């Protein structure tokens, strides 16, 4: 089975990389991009039967730094 973990900086934490991407889009002529947030996607190949609680534990312990990042999990 597969799981996909999305890790994003929490709302309210300034994302300097997202800001740089927003500026670059503006200079390419894409008007009206009001904000860009950059995160990461982590794909996990897991043994059948792995629970969402286990994946959550992985996020809390390693995959996300919950001081500044939030995460969401997609199973299957």
């Amino acid at each position, binding site marked *: 089975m597969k799981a996909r973990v999305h890790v994003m900086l929490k709302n309210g934490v300034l994302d*300097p990389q997202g800001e740089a991407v927003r500026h670059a889009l503006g200079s390419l002529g894409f008007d009206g991009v009001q904000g860009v947030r950059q995160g990461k996607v982590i794909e996990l190949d897991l043994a059948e039967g792995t629970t969402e609680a286990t994946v959550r534990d992985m996020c809390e312990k390693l995959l996300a730094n919950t001081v500044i990042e939030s995460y969401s999990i997609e199973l299957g």
Partner: protein
Amino acid sequence: MKAAVIVFPGSNCDRDLAVAFERAGMDVTMVWHKDTALPEGMDIIGIPGGFSFGDYLRCGAIAANSPICRSVVGHAERGGYVLGICNGFQVLTETGLLPGALMRNANLKFICKSVGLKVETSDSAFTAGYNAGQVLSIPVAHHDGNYNADAELVARLTGEDRIAFTYMDNPNGSVADIAGVLSENRRVLGMMPHPERAVDERHGGTDGSAMFRALMDQLATA
């Protein structure tokens, strides 16, 4: 006085830190990250700068979860001293021994230069050799030194006198110009600037020496 310096794959300031400890008169043991236990009787553990595990996932995240780091956390929880510099500071925030987090520099650039560093407190074994308010010249060399903490944490750190150093001219966007913070018991210090790169005239300055001398004095009398 015994010091251990932890070496991860990708550490690159480990020998500089060992030399700084030795110059102050400490016996230094290098400890490889795969070792699970620290040598007996260590007074202070140094976590050096560099790019442990290639900065994969997040700076310091993999190192913080390595076997030796569990022993470092245990050492700190028993009241032992820990000094984390640059990547070492990132590792200490990732272990939770120090609060906050270090993010990409606000200007997205790798910054490598000497900066004016203000000593905010002399109330720690690390900073007892300085006067509060004194300004040092210490090199920084990092891409992810932008200290992040919410307003509540900054207020707490300020109230508890746990901000050890601030930048005179904030190079990286750190909240409240914070360059280094102390743990609640004041025995764990994490800082982005490199005092171990300012302990010899040939480094271009010796403003870092007083930190290592003070540690030697304070730990000897502790």
